[in-house]
């Protein structure tokens, strides 16, 4: 959804049809983030609903001049999921971290959360850095400990990964433009 300014304005005016369209557009992407963070299908479904409820009730707080709607929604989902995880027993949280190391592959296969698209094409350490901060909701401090590299190195990984993503998407956009040019 490249240009959804009107839709978001309608959403902010409590238009349920606009909410429905935004849900259809973003629920998959947001659910993908939540389920990778909490690794619990049932909880992820509840958190997804809660995320959209919060967005609906706080829609007046969204300021388009400060960023994209999806980023705002992502932050709500991330905070809601982290709150959910904090409510769990600390022991379970510790186990969750260990899950990333030992049982990650099995869980990914069960929940179908293996990474796809351009992110999956990045080098493993770049892929992991983005996965930890973006999809697993870790802070940079938690993530560098998780990867076993110094904080500065980890930050470089994130930076480099972001640059690589930009390169890939810019290339894809260019190819798309060329195809459209050829078709017209």
């Amino acid at each position, binding site marked *: 959804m490249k240009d959804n300014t009107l839709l978001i304005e309608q959403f902010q005016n409590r238009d349920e049809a606009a909410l429905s369209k935004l849900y259809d557009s973003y629920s998959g*992407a*947001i659910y993908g983030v939540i389920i990778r963070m909490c690794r619990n299908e049932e909880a992820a479904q509840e958190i997804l*609903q809660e995320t*959209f*409820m919060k967005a609906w009730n706080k829609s007046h707080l969204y300021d388009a001049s400060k*960023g*994209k709607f999806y980023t705002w929604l992502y932050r709500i989902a991330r905070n809601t999921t982290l709150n959910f995880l904090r409510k769990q027993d600390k022991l379970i949280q510790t186990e969750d971290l260990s899950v990333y190391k030992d049982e990650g592959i099995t869980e990914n296969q069960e929940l179908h959360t293996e990474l796809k698209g*351009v992110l999956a094409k990045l080098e493993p350490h770049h892929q992991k850095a983005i996965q930890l901060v*973006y999809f697993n909701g870790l802070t940079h401090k938690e993530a560098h400990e998780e990867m076993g590299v110094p904080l500065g190195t980890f930050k470089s990984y994130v930076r480099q990964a972001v640059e690589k993503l930009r390169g890939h998407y810019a290339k894809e956009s260019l190819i798309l433009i060329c195809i459209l040019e050829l078709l017209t």
Partner: protein
Amino acid sequence: MKDRKTIIESGMLEMYLLGLLPDEQVTALEKMLAEDAVLAKKYAEIEQDFENVSLENAIQPPNFIKEDLFAAIQEEANVKTLPKEEKLADEQNGGKTVSFLWIGIAAGIAAMFMISALWMFNQWNATQNDLQITQQELQTIKEQIANLEGNLKDAELLAEVVKDPNTLQYSLKGNDKIPNGFATAYINHQDKSAIVNAQKLPALPADKTYQMWADVDGEMINMGIIDKSKDVVVLNYIDKATSLNITIEPAGGSDHATVSQLVTNVYL
């Protein structure tokens, strides 16, 4: 605050996107993003890339979540309106039912009166505005009609003069003062009439005007000012003229021709 390059290289934009930036840095960064278009563009690209990553890694949730979401929204809306309804029901069941009922009716009538008055006031305002707009449009149309009538009279006059076999036509080509300027004079010695089509004469500053003169025995006799706002200008017919001349004069015209400002002439 750090400069743009430092912000980009430090990873602050990614941390801001993730909601990990400390509050004290958020305000400063938002200010910079609002003021620095290059930085804002960079952040927008990162946002778009992360959105793309999310969409590529989307997992479709079960359909019932959406249904539950809308059911929850409806329920929440009902809960918000319910207390008022309950309160009203309680009041109706209480001992003061009759007095509350009358107060309710009175309040209802007052509210309706207020709404009606407001509606009528709005309607009156809207009508006033419409009337004003209509009057303005009418004035514009009147002006357009007056212009068209003027143009029609000019065209009729020109047609009448041109079709008369006694009318002689003279071309007046501009000299180096108005190299592309051009006027056409129509002289009818039978009717003793003279008109000029001055459409092709270049526009002059507001403090200047064109004026036409007839040369009679070496003396320039005033034929009149050429009004550039008209296509066709009727001039004074001068007997025994040997040439027609146009000069540039101060606005309002001159009693004597300024020969140094001669822009065109033709011998009859």
